[in-house]
């Protein structure tokens, strides 16, 4: 039994395991559909060695239909990443080219580019996602990709230079000083305890003496000897001297220090809302539960110069692709792409034309990604991005939303 427990502990602690899912499927379906729309996300390369860089870049559009009961991105958000722990170190991150070292705020309905650079730190196979932490709401994960890291952790180093030219390795920074000071105080604290505990027996005779003294109307202070007081004065003196000396040593070791940084990064507020040459109105949205078939009746108005075709519907990081328009295949086993999941009736909207289009998004991903649980959510408003492709190679992106009516038969 003990050997098994030790083996399990060894496995858990020392053997690198795959970093698995991050709980996004546990979130309510309708909130996943109406918060952050991640698209054009590229993560790679899929195999790197220790110390090499993995890039994540793409775009995110904050839903215009953000549930009002969920704290919004307009307070405070942080562009983060999920890598199953610190298996990578983050080298840089930005939103619209502005460094995202600290948190910022975004606006509903707006579209942002983002990029993150990671340096591989530990060997293993990790599922890497961009995520957005939203203050008081939680963590919203974007699409993920498996990244395989080869090599040895021993080869990893992470050196930076302070503004005074001191090179520091963040993996081991100041550890000697930290350990030494802890050891000094553990020894001094241990010495104080030892001074008292060396008297044997200790508790019972002292308890008896204190009780007897109190019964006689006095107190047990007679147990304290002059020697005890002298020792205590010595300990206080030494302790205070070491504290003062330590403080002065710290001041001399780092004469210029600054407090922790907490400023908020500003993204220009005059950033325009995304515009599209196509106008889409959701007439009706139904979900047929037995067939896992999502159907939208759309009224589409094409104000652009090219004939448009519905090529993709993306919601909650699932991409339903219309194979008649484009070919997209999953990059790995957890890439949420339904390559032939989108069927469009009455497709092809000519320039200046307004017409009704029926869109069917059908795939088992509705079930496996727990989006079918939307019928258990307190509200049934769904949203997602609709991608139109023009015959001239152009692309139009529109966020669509509407109330969903489930079909149970």
């Amino acid at each position, binding site marked *: 039994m003990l050997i098994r427990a030790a083996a399990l502990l060894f496995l858990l602690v020392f053997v690198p395991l795959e970093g698995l899912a991050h709980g996004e499927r546990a979130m309510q379906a309708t909130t996943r559909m109406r918060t952050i729309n991640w698209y054009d996300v590229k993560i790679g390369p899929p195999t790197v060695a220790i110390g090499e860089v993995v890039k994540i870049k793409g775009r995110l559009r904050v839903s215009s239909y953000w549930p009002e009961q969920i704290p919004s991105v307009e307070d405070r958000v942080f562009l983060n990443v999920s890598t199953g722990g610190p298996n990578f170190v983050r080298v840089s991150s930005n939103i619209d080219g502005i460094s995202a070292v600290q948190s910022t705020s975004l606006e509903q309905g707006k579209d942002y580019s983002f990029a993150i650079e990671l340096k591989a730190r530990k060997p293993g196979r990790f599922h890497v996602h961009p995520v957005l932490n939203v203050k008081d709401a939680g963590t919203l994960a974007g699409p993920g990709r498996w990244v395989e890291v080869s090599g040895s952790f021993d080869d990893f180093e992470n050196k930076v230079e302070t503004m005074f030219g001191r090179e520091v390795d963040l993996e081991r920074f100041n550890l000697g000083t930290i350990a030494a000071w802890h050891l000094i105080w553990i020894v001094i604290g241990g010495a104080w305890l030892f001074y008292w505990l060396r008297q044997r027996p200790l508790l019972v005779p002292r308890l008896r003496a204190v009780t007897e003294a109190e019964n006689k109307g006095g107190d047990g202070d007679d147990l304290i000897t002059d020697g005890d007081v002298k020792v205590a004065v010595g300990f206080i003196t030494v302790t205070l001297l070491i504290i003062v000396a330590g403080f002065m040593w710290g001041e001399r070791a780092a004469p*210029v220090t600054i407090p922790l940084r907490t400023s908020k990064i500003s993204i220009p507020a005059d950033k325009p809302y995304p515009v599209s040459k196509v106008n889409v109105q959701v007439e009706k949205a139904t979900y047929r539960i037995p067939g896992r078939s999502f159907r939208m009746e759309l009224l589409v108005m094409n104000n652009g110069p090219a004939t448009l075709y519905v090529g993709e519907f993306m919601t909650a990081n699932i991409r339903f692709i219309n194979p008649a328009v484009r070919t997209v295949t999953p990059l790995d086993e957890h890439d949420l792409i339904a390559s032939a999941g989108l069927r469009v009736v009455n497709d092809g909207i000519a320039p200046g034309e307004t017409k009704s289009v029926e869109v069917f998004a059908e795939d088992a991903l509705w079930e496996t990604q727990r989006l079918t649980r939307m019928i258990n959510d307190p509200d049934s408003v769904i949203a997602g991005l609709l991608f139109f492709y023009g015959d001239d190679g152009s692309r139009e992106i529109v966020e669509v939303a509407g109330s969903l009516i489930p079909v149970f038969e």
Partner: protein
Amino acid sequence: MATVAERSRITEYLESNVDLALFAVILFAVAGATVFVMSVTIGDWEFWVDWKDRRFWPLLPVAALLVFPAGLAAAFWSRFRLPIGCTGVVLLYTIMRWFSVYLNFHLFAGYPMSFVWPSIFIPLAILIDCSLLITRSVFLTGLSGAFLWGLLVYPVNWPLLAAFHEPINYNGEMLTTADLLGYEYIRTGLPEYIRLVERSVLRTFGDAVTPLTAVFAGFVCTLVFYVSWAFGSILNRQTWITKA
């Protein structure tokens, strides 16, 4: 087979040392409870280096940590006149903390120890215990030892922490080394904004944040000491233990 004399010697040895085992059990129990309570209340300030700020870290963890040591000090002082309650609990707490961060945050979660080292509190505990012994007064110990407990936490930890507050120019932005550790070593569920650390506010008295916090922490800790001592004294009454 032990002789009667040998058995007698063993019995005598056990009788004179059994209180050491009792002492260890009590100390481990209280220190373990302290680790648990600190972990579920103000644990983040206590070990993440990018939470060790000038306003909250020198105030909240020190005030919270004082509760159990002061309570146990009341028991050890009033029953045995032993001024070791604070030092004993804090010493064991520190050792347990090292085990906890080393196993949980370094070996298991994979963060560098530079990022998750525990704070130092042992000298502050020594100051309380020694004050208690010298003054033999709970009131004066609260005014002196407990005040110093809150006042000195920053200077006690400064030799460890100072280097983490050196500025770094990182991608055109000024950060401390502590901030950079927090940025580079990924914590998906613990974003930058979630830290409850000092922010620039209008009520800041110039740049004298640390001394003001230290003095305020001293007052708070004096109060916490008296309240915890009172609870320790009440829980320590023999009336809670009934004879069979």
